[in-house]
């Protein structure tokens, strides 16, 4: 074999691989130019609802737990008599961690199965993909995960935290602890970039300095340089918006560089109990997270929820914030439907304002204007057992403010 021939072959080979990768990325679009809503099929003695989660692919680890807790809520409601004397019939679809698939399956649930509401989605990318589908068909989505805010849709109920219920309280906590400087580390996509814009605006208004901001591609596992930069910056704390597996590599590198929760704490906003278990408790012990709910949150409603979940899925399965928000979503929808006296989407939306529910995280209230819910903010510390224990809470539910209108420093953001 000559060397030159080898090189030409390799070049051709790489072109082929690149072309195949591009082809795989090409997205399918469905455009049906109907604008009329499809009403749910409620002729029988059951009412269908859609469950739209990634049951395969890279997000499956997180989203399967959400599907499980939605199923738990449906079972509980059914055994208590159902909604408007109808039993709930779940129709589960797999979004496969692929945003165009999410849009396709949403369309299918709404138009073919004629569900009364859909519960699901996790990443902001999947939510952005299904948003036009729900708006076009005038159907309802309940979205249970914290997100970057700056969004509002008449056909989506956001039951996870928006930024003023998670990121801003997390920053308030750091400020109260005396942190004067921050380093921002995140994955390179919409959620971290938007979140960091908000954090920088907050820091500027509150006399904190942001010493650096670094992004790693989703799935990246090389954190040597970022850890070096973080370490030499001497920041008081790190704000971490990394998603998924990158956290594993980041925290391993962090520990081996000699950085600890005592020397430079990390506040994370997308690591919950399930992720702590898979990253490894020894790398996370003592680090901070900001959420609205932990498995350890006190209260009778949570004791009941945790016990029911473990009885159904196994004693070693932790509960987490997005799972709790998903569980609560089903009950909120039930309350809205019962108040409206019908499954009709527009009437359900009108009835939503002021609906309350004694959730595992404490009392939550639906804000009809923004279709977000008032939630209590919490900061917690990872313990040696892998569970997260609260070190601070906001004392009362915080009114959702997705566009941060009540914060003067956030003026230029939306």
């Amino acid at each position: 074999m000559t060397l030159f021939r080898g090189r030409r072959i390799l070049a051709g080979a790489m072109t082929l691989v690149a072309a195949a990768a591009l082809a795989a990325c090409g997205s399918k679009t469905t455009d049906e130019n109907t604008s009329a809503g499809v009403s749910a099929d409620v002729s029988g003695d059951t009412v269908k609802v859609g469950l739209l989660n990634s049951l395969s692919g890279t997000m499956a680890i997180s989203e399967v737990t959400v599907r499980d807790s939605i199923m738990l809520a449906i079972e509980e409601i059914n055994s208590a008599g159902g909604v408007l004397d109808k039993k709930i019939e779940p129709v589960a679809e797999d979004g496969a961690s692929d945003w165009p698939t999410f849009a396709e399956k949403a369309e299918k649930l709404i138009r073919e199965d004629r569900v009364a509401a859909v519960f699901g989605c996790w990443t902001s990318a999947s939510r952005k993909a299904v948003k036009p589908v729900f708006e076009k068909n005038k159907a309802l989505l309940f979205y249970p995960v914290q997100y970057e805010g700056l969004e509002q849709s008449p056909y989506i109920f956001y039951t996870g935290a928006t930024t003023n219920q998670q990121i801003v309280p997390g920053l308030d906590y750091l400020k109260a602890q005396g942190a004067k400087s921050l380093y921002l580390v995140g994955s390179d996509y919409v959620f971290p970039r938007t979140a960091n814009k908000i954090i920088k605006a907050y820091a500027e208004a509150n006399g904190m300095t942001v010493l650096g901001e670094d992004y790693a591609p989703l799935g990246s596992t090389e954190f040597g340089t970022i850890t070096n930069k973080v370490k030499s910056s001497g920041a008081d704390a790190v704000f971490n918006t990394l998603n998924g597996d990158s956290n594993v590599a980041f925290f391993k590198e962090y520990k081996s560089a000699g950085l600890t929760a005592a020397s430079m704490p990390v506040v994370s906003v997308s690591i919950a109990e399930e992720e702590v278990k898979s990253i490894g408790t020894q790398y996370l012990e003592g680090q901070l997270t900001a959420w609205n709910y932990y498995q350890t949150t006190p209260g009778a409603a949570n004791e009941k929820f945790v016990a029911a979940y473990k009885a159904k899925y196994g004693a070693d399965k932790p509960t987490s914030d997005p799972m709790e928000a998903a569980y609560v979503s089903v009950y909120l929808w039930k309350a809205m439907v019962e108040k409206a006296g019908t499954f009709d989407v527009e009437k359900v939306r009108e009835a939503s304002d002021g609906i309350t529910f004694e959730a595992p995280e404490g009392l939550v209230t639906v804000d009809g204007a923004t279709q977000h819910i008032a939630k209590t903010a919490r900061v917690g510390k990872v313990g040696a057992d892998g569970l997260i224990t609260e070190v601070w809470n906001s004392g009362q539910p915080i009114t959702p403010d997705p566009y941060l209108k009540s914060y003067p420093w956030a003026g230029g953001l939306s």
Partner: protein
Amino acid sequence: MTVLIGQLFTGVSIGAVLLLIALGLALTFGQMGVINMAHGEFIMAGAYTTYVLQQVITAAGWSLLIALPVAFVVAGAMGVLLEILLIRRLYARPLDTLLVTWGVSLILQQLARDVFGSPNVQTRAPDLLTGNIALPGGITVANNRLFILALAAGAVVALTVALRVTPLGRRIRAVVQNRDLAAVSGIPTARVDRMTFFIGSGLAGIAGVALTLLGPIGPTMGTNLIIDAFLVVVVGGIGQLKGTVIVAFALGVLQASGEYLTTLSVAKVMVFIAIVAFLQWRPQGMFTLRTRSLA
């Protein structure tokens, strides 16, 4: 200054990982002209071997040490199987080896998903390797990175000795220089190919063990690394151990300096531009094998 030395060490450690991955590839690509896209999945096999051993042997230090030879044999055996079943039928068609091994890599990824589940798994690192050594001046050197560096150095030395001293090594070199002449001289080239594939794939297994110290273990971990490894082999000069070593470290340091001065994505682009520029200047790579082959 502290940062500079820290970054230099980061660059060298990125280089060590690249070297471990590229070493086996350089061997199989140089020897047989086979573009083995399944090399990344052999790395994955090595990583999962470590994971499985850790389920059995709970002392993390021991399971890691035992994983090294076991992963070498497991990945090596997979390589030999691939060679016997498919590649040996395709020696005259290098481009077809690419497509076939790519197919194999997809099958292996799915197999890993079926066996270990699609969520990534973790191993526990021995306590000794989670800490660091503090040098004067506030410089810290991570133990796991040192271990990987030592592993890469060990692999290079072992491979060099094997190629220079052992009869098998002499045969491998003979086949690389002129396959036909080697064949008529009585060297069983088919058997030499198989042994080369065993060693090359086994080295991927060792790389897999090393990677468990750095990040998650998952079905797709190999695909992220395979392109970088090919770049090292091509720039280093195909079939050249010396070139592979130098280029792996050079790219590591270049990547680390780029990352420090700009961002991760921009650094990646810088490295690609540097490679393209280099190949314009020296299309044959850094080192060229003087060969009497007529092919």
